[in-house]
């Protein structure tokens, strides 16, 4: 009960924050112009639609509730034998509820996409009493969009369920890494001195540890799981953006327009927020999206190595990990790998295209008027 309560509250809180910041931004002239610019860009709009679809699925998969267990014989709600309390199941997300028809379509084992028969043949005794190799028909013929896996689970359903994992890894890791990078990069670059030295040494130490080893060590200490993985990847990956931002801030600090603002008596925090950070925005945006993409891909690699999310979390990485053995079979079982890749590219490509459009729209110099 508590688990779902917490998760639902976090999801709703995040959605509210997102809506509030979108509303705030929509009141600003620069962002309103940018939005108008993006509306004229068809590719960006299409990308946004796909991203919104992914986001919607991830949100649906993040809210859930527990349902009372139904006694299959009587059809009544099951109750505790002593206390009489209603017994609840493990709970399922809204997406699970929506996908119930697909989720319930279980087969015995592998079947190819849109096939009406099982992929592997079994030995059967024919009507003439002789043993023969047959491919038995499926329970749900021609209903599996991307086939089924070894235990007969629908692969398309797995791909859909992995969206949430991918989005959380991409977003949470980025949200952890970017504020750190901006804070350290801008402060180190602008103020210099001991602050710069401290940040530089911290960064040098962190980046001298191999990322995979660092994440593996982190996961061994704190256990496998989605939050741990995000934290480990966030810590391991802020240094690249930090370096970029520090260098750019160093350049901007000596730019004439910053000097002019200083000479005008504009306070330091205002110089940072109005003159420096907006001029770093294009770097932050590009790096954020590239990071989002590479984070999604890195999860696949880490799960493949066995140090990603645990086995109980569905992810594209674990799908690819499963495909490792499937690819060695003859004839090859290609649909699980293909599905995982298609879902990943479907997220990463529109994200890159959309970020590119946003960056162009935010840069007054590139605006088409």
């Amino acid at each position, binding site marked *: 009960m508590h688990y779902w309560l917490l998760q639902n509250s976090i999801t709703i809180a995040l959605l509210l924050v997102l809506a509030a910041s979108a509303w705030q931004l929509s009141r600003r002239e*620069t962002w309103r112009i940018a939005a108008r610019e993006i509306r004229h860009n068809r590719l960006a709009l299409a990308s946004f639609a796909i991203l919104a679809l992914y986001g919607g699925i991830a949100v649906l998969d993040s809210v859930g509730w527990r349902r009372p267990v139904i006694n299959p014989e009587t059809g009544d709600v099951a109750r505790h034998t002593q206390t009489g309390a209603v017994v609840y199941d493990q709970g399922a997300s809204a997406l699970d509820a929506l996908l119930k028809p697909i989720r319930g379509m279980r087969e015995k084992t592998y079947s190819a996409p849109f096939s009406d028969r099982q992929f592997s043949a079994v030995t059967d005794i024919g009507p003439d009493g002789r043993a023969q190799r047959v491919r038995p028909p499926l329970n749900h013929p021609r209903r599996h969009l991307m086939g089924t896996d070894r235990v007969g689970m629908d692969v398309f359903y797995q791909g859909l369920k992995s969206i949430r994992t991918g989005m959380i890894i991409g977003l949470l890791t980025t949200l952890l890494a970017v504020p750190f990078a901006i804070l350290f990069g801008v402060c180190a670059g602008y103020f210099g001195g001991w602050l710069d030295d401290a940040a530089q040494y911290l960064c040098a130490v962190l980046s001298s540890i191999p990322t995979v080893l660092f994440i593996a060590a982190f996961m061994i200490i704190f256990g496998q799981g989605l939050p741990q993985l995000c934290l480990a990847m966030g810590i391991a990956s802020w240094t690249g953006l930090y370096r970029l931002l520090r260098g750019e801030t160093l350049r901007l600090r000596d*730019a*004439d*327009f910053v*000097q*002019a*603002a*200083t*000479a*005008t*008596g*504009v*306070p330091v925090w*205002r110089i940072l927020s*109005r*003159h420096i950070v*907006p*001029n770093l925005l294009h770097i932050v945006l590009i790096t954020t999206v590239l990071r989002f993409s590479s984070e999604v891909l890195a999860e696949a690699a880490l799960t493949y190595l066995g140090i990603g999310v645990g086995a109980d979390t569905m992810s594209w990485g674990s799908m690819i990990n499963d495909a490792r053995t499937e690819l060695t079979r003859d004839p090859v079982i290609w649909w699980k790998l293909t599905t995982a890749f298609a879902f990943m590219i479907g997220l990463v490509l529109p994200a890159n295209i959309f970020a590119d459009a946003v960056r162009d729209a935010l*840069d*007054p*110099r590139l605006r088409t008027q």
Partner: protein
Amino acid sequence: MTGRLFRQSPLHLMPTMPEPLLAIKDLRVWFPIRKGVLNRVAGHVRAVDGVSLAMAKGETLGLVGESGCGKTTLGRAILGLEHARSGSIRFAGQELNGMAEKEHRLLRRRCQMIFQDPYSSLNPRMTAMDLITEGLAYHGLLAGRSREEAAAELMHEVGLDRDGIFRYPHEFSGGQRQRLSIARALSLQPDFIVCDEPVSALDVSVQAQVINLLLDLRAKHQLSYLFISHDLSVVRLIAQRVAVMYLGHIIECGSCADILDAPLHPYTQALISAVPTPGKDRRQRTVLTGEMPSPAAPPPGCPFHPRCPQAMPICRTTMPAESSIGDHSVRCHLITDNKNTANTSTDGKANGPGYDATPVQQEKT
């Protein structure tokens, strides 16, 4: 309508006022050179090395010299953009060097700067209105007007279209951008503006327009300009007094006519002879050999002696003291030795005073 923006000047102050608007004394701005793992200071770049000068209200001082001589650093040090190592900068009777940032912010209103490059001096992500009224808003000087009104008044003041306030810098031409830069400097109703080569990045025709604007604004608001330039013909147009800088030192300072028509220092003579003049250009040019020494390792004695065509043994060992003839001051051993002859020389030739010296290296052009 625009008059509301600017406070009226109480009275016209003459350049020979006892308390000048700006008085710099023995100012040094050194940049440390750090080396090695421990970042130890291995030496200093002496960008400004013992500069003294004074400026009256409403006066324009032209600061000339070749690239790297410390002109810009001097201007920036006055605005507090560079940390002065020693010396004093007194502005309107208050010592700026070592002043706390909080107090300095109030004085910053009164000293502003116009930058050389109209492309890098305006934040590309801010509209014209935000750019020119930013300081106003922070010093609480909007006085009941909206930012739009204040911006439109300033735009009009510098000869830009009032409707341009919502445009971004890249939508303006170079000259217009420089006008924006001037509007930003003017917004805080300053007494003193450092103009760091404000026209050298512009076309010649646009240069004239911007110079005229600066002249008009000076007359209207009693502004003092420290006009940094390497273009002597522009300096002649705008400045009443000229200071010549070489390797962090002011080597000659005086009225515009004195410096440009009767220079005393060999370096100033060479500088002025290098200005191309149209028509009957058959005069002798003094061509300096070699380059300006590094300010990180300045030569002993007079900083100009390695290139000076008239260098004497004393120049290699002793920095010449400042000698003044009227309000014309110069730092050169030749002048200290030949004060009387120097005083008589006003022939306007690039070859300077008729003191007895080693022959100048000359070239017929």
